[in-house]
């Protein structure tokens, strides 16, 4: 049986393909095309509430490696096991509405609603809109089960994000006392944060593709509605007020699955 040493790439570098471009006849999926991507995003590593965010991304690509566009989505929340456990053990079972004298009820009066935890005090991402620049540094192909071959690329993106939040409304000594049941309401706020990430895209046809994307969205917010900070040394202790001091920095992460449609549908092919 004939054998040859494992030098395939080196032969290409020094052989008749020396000096030739890495790829010929490249299909330019993006250059001069509008990309429309319906998507669904899932937040990761959530403490109290998870968010599923249906959304849409529209990007125009000036070249095959650079585009500008906008991504946006609307958040739908559901609770984590921790929230369900708190609701059951710390709210429903204690029944503080009728047993306000109980020690645990008195100690948690400023931190726990006597109604529904998710609706009254947990922070939520209502919507996100993010204009962004998209770069496509890597183009390639993928063999699946050594039978199916599909063009792929990797894109990275960066831009500002505008996040519509709902957080527990501010309360404390200067306003409504945090132990007042009226203080357990959500209030809207707009947060501005950087957003960035990368995606892996597959192109089974010239005008349709699909992909997966990771997005970082770091900003500070109060996910629990608790009074955690603002008092004591270094403001590391509760101060009987819920306000901006109680916001914590989170590296919010989203995983997005998307379908991609390109317009016009005809793809250019490089020389």
């Amino acid at each position, binding site marked *: *049986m*004939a*054998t*040859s*040493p*494992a030098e*395939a*790439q080196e*032969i290409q570098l020094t*052989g*008749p393909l020396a000096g030739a*471009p*890495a*790829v010929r006849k*490249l299909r330019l999926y993006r250059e001069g095309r509008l990309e429309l991507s319906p998507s669904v995003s899932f937040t*990761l*590593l959530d*403490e109290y509430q998870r968010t599923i965010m249906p959304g849409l991304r529209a990007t125009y690509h000036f070249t095959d*490696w650079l585009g500008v566009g906008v991504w946006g989505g609307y958040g739908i929340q559901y609770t984590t096991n*921790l929230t369900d*456990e*708190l609701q059951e*053990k*710390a709210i429903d079972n204690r029944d503080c509405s009728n047993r306000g004298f109980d020690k*645990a009820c008195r*100690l*948690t009066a400023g*931190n*726990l609603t006597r109604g529904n935890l998710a609706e009254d005090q947990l922070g939520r991402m209502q919507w996100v809109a993010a204009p962004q620049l998209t770069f496509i*540094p*890597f*183009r*390639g*192909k*993928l*063999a*699946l*089960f*050594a039978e199916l*071959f599909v063009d*792929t*690329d*990797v894109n990275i993106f960066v831009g500002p994000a505008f996040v519509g939040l709902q957080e527990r409304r501010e309360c404390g000594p200067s306003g409504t006392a945090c132990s007042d049941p009226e203080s357990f309401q959500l209030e809207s706020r707009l947060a501005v944060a950087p957003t960035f990430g990368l995606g892996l895209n597959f192109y089974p046809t010239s005008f349709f593709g699909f992909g997966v994307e990771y997005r970082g969205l770091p900003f500070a917010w109060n996910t*629990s509605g*608790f*009074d*955690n900070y603002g008092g004591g040394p270094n403001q590391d202790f*509760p101060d009987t007020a819920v306000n901006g001091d109680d916001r914590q920095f989170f590296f919010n992460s989203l995983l997005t699955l998307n379908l991609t449609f390109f317009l016009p549908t005809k793809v250019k092919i490089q020389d």
Partner: protein
Amino acid sequence: MNQARVGLFVAAALLAVPLTASAQQPQQPKEINLDEPEAPEETETPAGAPVDVPTEEGDSGLGDICKIDPAACPSIDMDKAAARDLKEEVYAVQQIYALRRHRFEVNPYWAVTMNDQFAGHPGPGLAVNWYITNVLAVGVNGNFYAGLNSVSDFNFQTSRAARVGQPITEYAWNANANFTYVPAYGKFAGFGDFIFHYDFYVVGGVGAISTRPIAVVDPDNRTFNFEPKISFRLGGGLRIFFNRWFAAMLEVSDYIFFDKLENPSIPQVREQAQNPDTWLAEGTNFTNNVQAQVGISIFLPFTWEYRLPK
């Protein structure tokens, strides 16, 4: 003269070979290989095959074809035929750049907890795999957590704010026997300039994980010892090859097991509270320890020979 014969054979091939050959059919002629030696001057001619007849004038054009097959003579325009799009066959991946078959993979990594908000279980790990085929491997891996577990601020803040103690556990070690399957591999051109190779893999296995509760409900009376439990592993990852034996890897693995947690209630009688039989909650808790593993892969031996030429 030799060039003339090559030209004739190319022209004959243009007529004989359908030009719509699909790219991935291996039984089709593969590619023009310029590294192959030139054909000898005289070769045996199969019966019925066209015969190269030298002309008296040394004619190297259509005259030779006309002598072989006069019927084809007027229909060939050599310039047009040469300009036709050949749609030559090129394999998507010519030869697998980093062949895995019959090689060991040594994979040291660092693991970080992804889904435990209350306690972190970071630690080093090592996997060793043997590739039975190019896509299937058997191997073992282990994680070492002892002394590296950390209770999060989040645990403290939640307990303080809600007056609810959340049972937490720490891990000592974890070991598994695994199967690894590589369903997808490919390559990327970076900035249209250089090429690197990558693959995706999935891994599944069975093993044991040693855990114990951290006493938070009654730390005055309770201390726990590590005990191994059966664990199952499911995961998937990405490897990016820098050369034929060295790669960076990123993997997410879920180590699934049934954990024993601290009893959230304390017996009123002191003697009972100090009885270890009362320290654990009834039943077991289905636990997913999802961790991200980042590391490198070294394939041994460093070099090999392809079974077939390119």
